[in-house]
C-alpha cells in the first residue's frame, strides 16, 4: 500500500509536469484527488490494515495528500487566467462613467431642509393643491374681500375651488385631523395668478411649518428657527424678528437672517443692512386654532413659511426662476 501510494504520487507529479492548460489540470485533479479519485480508492483500503500499520500508513497517506494538494495549488495559481501581467492600454483615457439622472434642484433643497426638521421632531405632511376657498382663505382668517387676498392673486377653478396660493392651506386641515400637540412641515407646490419674469413664476414651492402645543411663545419660535436654520445652513446663524402682517398669525413677523455673505457687516447681498429677509412667521391666530378645533385659551403655536424655490435659487445662484419649471435638460443635468 505504501508502494501504491508512492507510485501514485510519482505518476501524478509526472503527469502534472506535462499539463499545459487549466482545464486539463482540473481534469487531472479530479481524476486523482476527487471524491471518487484514485487516491481515495487507495485510502479506502486503510480500514483493512492491521492496527499496527494503520497509524504509520495513515500518516504517510495524509502527508502525500497534503503534498499533492500543495503542488496542485501551485500549478493552479500558475494557470490562473487572471494572472495577466501585460498592460497595453491607454490608462490616461477618461474613465467610463455610468450615466446617472438628475433631481430637480428644488427637490434636492427640499429634502435637505426636511432632514433638519425631521431631526427636531417635525414630521412631513401632505395635502391638496386644488383647494377650497375655506381652507385656503376663510379658515385662515382671510374672509371674502379681505385685502390680503390682493397680494395672493388666485387661479380660480370651476366648482368654486382654487389652486392653493400657499402651503398654509394645510394648517387647519392638519389641526382638524391630528389635533394638538402638533409639529409638522408641509412642503409643496403653490400657485399665484401673476405674470412671469426672471424673478416671478406663477408656480413655485414653499415649506410651511406649524407647531402647536401648550405654552408656546415667541421666544420658542426664535430659538426653534435659529436652531433649524443653523442646521439647514450648516453653520451658526442669527435671526431677528420685525413686524409683518399675515391674517392667520397674531403677532405676525418677518424673520430676517444675519447676512451669510458678510456676517452682518453690510454688503451688496444684504443691501448694506447686515440682514436678509428670509420668511414670514408668527404666532398662530386664535381664529385659526378655533377653526382647527382647538381652544386658544389652552393651546398656542407658531407657524412659518419658507420659500423653497427662493432657497434653491440662493443656494445655486439661479438667476431665472422659470428654469426650475422648464424641464430643460441643459439645466437639470447640472444637478
Amino acid at each position, binding site marked *: 500500500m505504501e508502494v501504491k501510494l508512492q507510485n501514485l504520487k510519482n505518476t501524478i507529479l509526472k503527469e502534472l509536469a506535462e499539463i499545459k492548460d487549466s482545464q486539463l489540470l482540473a481534469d487531472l485533479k479530479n481524476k486523482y484527488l476527487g471524491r471518487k479519485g484514485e487516491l481515495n480508492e487507495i485510502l479506502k483500503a486503510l480500514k483493512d490494515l492491521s492496527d499496527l500499520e494503520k497509524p504509520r500508513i495513515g500518516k504517510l497517506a495524509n502527508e502525500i495528500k497534503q503534498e499533492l494538494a500543495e503542488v496542485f495549488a501551485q500549478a493552479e495559481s500558475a494557470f490562473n487566467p487572471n494572472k495577466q501581467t501585460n498592460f497595453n492600454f491607454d490608462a490616461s483615457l477618461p474613465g467610463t462613467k455610468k450615466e446617472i439622472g438628475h433631481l430637480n434642484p428644488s427637490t434636492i433643497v427640499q429634502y435637505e431642509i426636511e432632514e433638519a426638521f425631521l431631526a427636531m421632531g417635525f414630521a412631513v405632511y401632505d395635502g391638496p393643491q386644488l383647494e377650497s376657498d375655506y381652507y385656503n382663505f376663510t379658515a385662515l382668517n382671510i374672509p371674502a374681500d379681505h385685502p390680503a387676498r390682493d397680494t395672493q392673486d388666485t387661479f380660480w377653478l370651476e366648482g368654486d375651488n382654487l389652486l392653493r396660493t400657499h402651503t398654509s392651506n394645510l394648517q387647519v386641515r392638519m389641526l382638524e385631523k391630528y389635533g394638538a400637540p402638533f409639529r409638522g412641515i408641509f412642503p409643496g407646490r403653490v400657485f399665484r395668478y401673476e405674470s412671469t419674469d426672471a424673478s416671478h413664476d406663477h408656480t413655485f414651492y414653499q415649506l410651511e411649518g406649524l407647531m402647536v402645543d401648550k405654552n408656546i*411663545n415667541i421666544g420658542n419660535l426664535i430659538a426653534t428657527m435659529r436652531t433649524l436654520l443653523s442646521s439647514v445652513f450648516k453653520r451658526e446663524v442669527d435671526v431677528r424678528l420685525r413686524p409683518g402682517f399675515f391674517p392667520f398669525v397674531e403677532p405676525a413677523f418677518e424673520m430676517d437672517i444675519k447676512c451669510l455673505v458678510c456676517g452682518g457687516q453690510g454688503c451688496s447681498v444684504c443691501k448694506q443692512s447686515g440682514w436678509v429677509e428670509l420668511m414670514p412667521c408668527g404666532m398662530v391666530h386664535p381664529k385659526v386654532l378655533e377653526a382647527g378645533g382647538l381652544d386658544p385659551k389652552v393651546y398656542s403655536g407658531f407657524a412659518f413659511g419658507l420659500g423653497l424655490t427662493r432657497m434653491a435659487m440662493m443656494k445655486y445662484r439661479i438667476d431665472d426662476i422659470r428654469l426650475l419649471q422648464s424641464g430643460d435638460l441643459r439645466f437639470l443635468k447640472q444637478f
Partner: protein
Amino acid sequence: MYLSVNWLKDWLKLPKDLTAEKLAHDLTMSTVEVEEVIDQAASLAGVLVGKIKEIAPHPDADRLQVCQVDLGSRVDQIVCGGSNLSKGMLVAVATVGSKVKWHGEGELVTLEKVKIRGIESHGMIAAASEIGLNNLFPAKSDKEILDLTDLSLKVGADLSQALQLNDFIIDIDNKSINHRPDLWGQYGLAREVAAIYRLTLADYQVAPLKEADEMKLKVSVKDKDKCFRYLGLVIKNVKVEPSPLWLKNRLQAVGLRPINNIVDVTNYIMYELGQPMHAFDARMIEGPEIQVVSAKKGEKFITLDGTKRRLNENCLMIADSKKYVAVAGIMGGQNSEISSDTETVILESANFLASNIRRSSGFLALRSESSARFEKSLDPVLAELAIRKAAELILSLNDEAYVASRLQDINYNPFKEINLEVPETLINSRFGVEIPTKEIKDILTRLQFQVEYKNQTFFIKVPTFRATKDISIPEDIVEEVARIYGYDNIKSSLPAVFLQAPHTDVAHQVLKDLKFWMSLFQGYSEAYTYPFTNLPWVEKLHLSLNDHVKVKNTISLDQAYLNLSLLPNLLAKAEENFRFFDNIKIFEIDRTFDKKHKSVYHTDPSKKKYLPLQDKHFAGLEVSVDTGQATFLRIKGLWESLADYFGIKLSFEKNENVFSSLVYDIKTQDVTLGQFGLLKNDLFNSGPSKVQVAWWSVNFSVLVKYINQNMIYTPLPKFPSMQRDLAIVVAEDILWEDLMKEIIKISPLLVNLEPFDVFTGHGVPEGKKSIAFHLEFRSTDKTLESADVELIMKQILAVLNKKFDSQLR
C-alpha cells in the same frame, strides 16, 4: 407710501441726533417695512442755479448751442440742445461730478468734463426729468430744459437749498401697512414715531369753520350699508392757480404731481391724514344736491382719466339730481372736475364700506390712491377732521374765498367702541418673558390706547383710528406691546415638549426613495412642469377636455385646464429638449386633477362636499434613436426592476390606445395602476430624425398602497441547482410569454426560466425564429441527478413541439 421727515416735524420735535437711516431702521423693527431712504439734497448734489450769460451757435452741430453760464463764483461753458434756451434765463446746472438721468430714463450717470463735437462742455443744463423734478416742473416737450427764471433764485446757490428740497423721504412698503388704515397718512406715522421714541405728539390743529347759509347743499345717502359717512361743504370765490412752493414741495416729497391749489389741497390732506377727498366744480352739480347711490348694471360713466367705464350694481356712485359725478371712493368724473375757471367748489369727505370699494375697483380695474386707502377700512372720524382742514387750507391759499354753506354731515358710522380685557398673563406667556406692568401700560398709552389695570388685567379702550378692523382681540394687544417693547428684547428658548411617537408618512418616504432610484439607478432626470396641461398634446393623446378641471379666470390657453395626466407636458418638454439631446429620459411625480372623481379632501368641516380627485401620478418617457423594441423593453425593464426594488408584485397585460403602437396595463392584484407603451411614431415632432418614444403613466397614490413594507428573507437553498440551456425554432409570431406559460406548467422543479437570445435570419428558416433560454432546476428536498432533469427537458421539448410545432436547434 412715502414718509417725509420734514412733514413729521409739524407735530414732533425729533431728537437732534436722529438720522433718517436710524428712523428708517427703527420703523422697520417696530412698525412697517422700509424700502429705502431718499436724501433729496444728496440726489441734487452738485446741481446749482445758473444764469445764461451768452449763447452762441455750435460751429459743428445745428441743434446744439454753446452757453456761457454764470454760477456765481465762476462762469462755465456748457454745450446744450435745449429748445427753450435764452439769454438771462435761470437754469439748473448739473456740474461735473453730479448725477443725472439721461433724458430722464435709466440709471444715474455721473457727469464728466467732455468735448461735444469738439467744444468743451462742463456738465449740463438739465431738464426737469434729468434731475428728478418733473413732478414739480412738468415740461411741455422733452427738448425743453428746466426754466427757473420766474422763481428769482440766487445764482450759484445749491438748487436743493434754493428750492428748499432738503427733505429725507422714507419709502414704506405698502404691503406692510395693508392692515393699518391709520398709517396711510403722515400724521398716523408721526403717532408711531412718537410712540417709538417717547416723543410728545402735537394735537392735530384745525381752525374753526365759519359756516354760512348763502348756499344750501343737499346731501342724501341712499345706500347706508355702503356709505358710512358723507360730509359736504361749498366754498365760493376760489381762484384756481398753481400752489405755492411749500405745498408743491410737500407733494413732491411724497411723489405726487402738483396740479392746482384746489386739487393739491385734497391730495395734501389725503397724504397728511390718510383720508381721501374730492372737490367738484359746483357749476356742474345740479341743485346743488349730492346723492350717494348704487349704480345699475350696464350703466356707463367717464372717469377723470377720460376712460369710459361700464358699471355694475356694486359700484357706489356720487350723483347730483340728474347724473353721476363720481365713482364713490375710487375716482371722480370728467363731467365735474376742477378747471382753471372754477370759482365755486363742493368739497367731499366721506367714508365707504371697504370691501365694496375693493370689489368695485377690482371690477372696474381701476385702482387709485383713494381706493387703496378706503379699502383698508378708514376711521369715519377722520372724514370730518379732513374736510375742516381742507377748508382751512383752501381759504388760506385764496384770499377772496369763503365758506358758503353749512357743513353737511350724514353719519352712519357703524364701528362700535372696542374695549378689551387682556390678562397680563396672556402678554407675558406669549412673550416667554415678564415685562413690567408699568412698561406695558406705558407702551399702550404711547400708542393712544386708554388703559386701566385691575386684578392682573388690562382694561383697554381702543382708539377709533385702530378700531375699524385692525385691533379686535387680546392677541392684537400682545403684538402692540411686543413690537414697541422690541422683538430683540425677547429671550429665546427652545420649547419644552413631551416626546411623541413620530408621524410617518409611507407615501412621502417611498416618493423620495423613488426619485433617488429613478435618477441614480435609472438615469432619469426629474422635470417639474406646470399644473396647466398642454392642449396640443391633450388632443394628440385623445384625452377628453370634459374630464379636465377648467381654470376660470385666465385668458391664456396655456393656463386653461389643469393636468389630468402628466404626459402632455412631459411630451412637450421632450420635444423642446430634442433640439439639444437625441436621448431624453425624464420623469415627474406630482398631483393631477380629475374632475369626474372625488378625492378624500372635504371642502369644509361640514364634510358635505369633496374636492376633485388629485392623486399623485408618476409618469416619464424615454426618447431614443434606438429601435422600438429596445426602447420599449427598457421601459418594461424599468418597471420590472421597480417591482423588484419596491417589493411589489406587478403584472403586465396587453391593452391598446389611440396614441400608442403598443400598450400594456401595469396591474397588481387585479388593480390597474397605469400603463406603459410605445408612442405612435408620427405624433412626436423630432424633425428629420427618426426616434422612438416609450412612456409610462401610473397612479403613484395607488401604487404606494401595494408596496410591500414587510419584506422577509427567503432561506438560502439547501441543495444545488442544475442549469440547462435550450434553443428552439418556432414560428415568428409565437410569443415568449406563451412559451413560458406552457413551460412553467411542466414541473415544479423549474425555478428559473429566462430567454437570452432571439434571432431570425441566417440559419433559421423563413418565417421562423430561434429562441434560446436558460432553465434552472432545483428541488427543496434532494440534490437533483442528471437523469431527473433530462426527463423534464424531454417533456418540455415534447410539449413545445406539440403546442407550438417547435424544433430543437
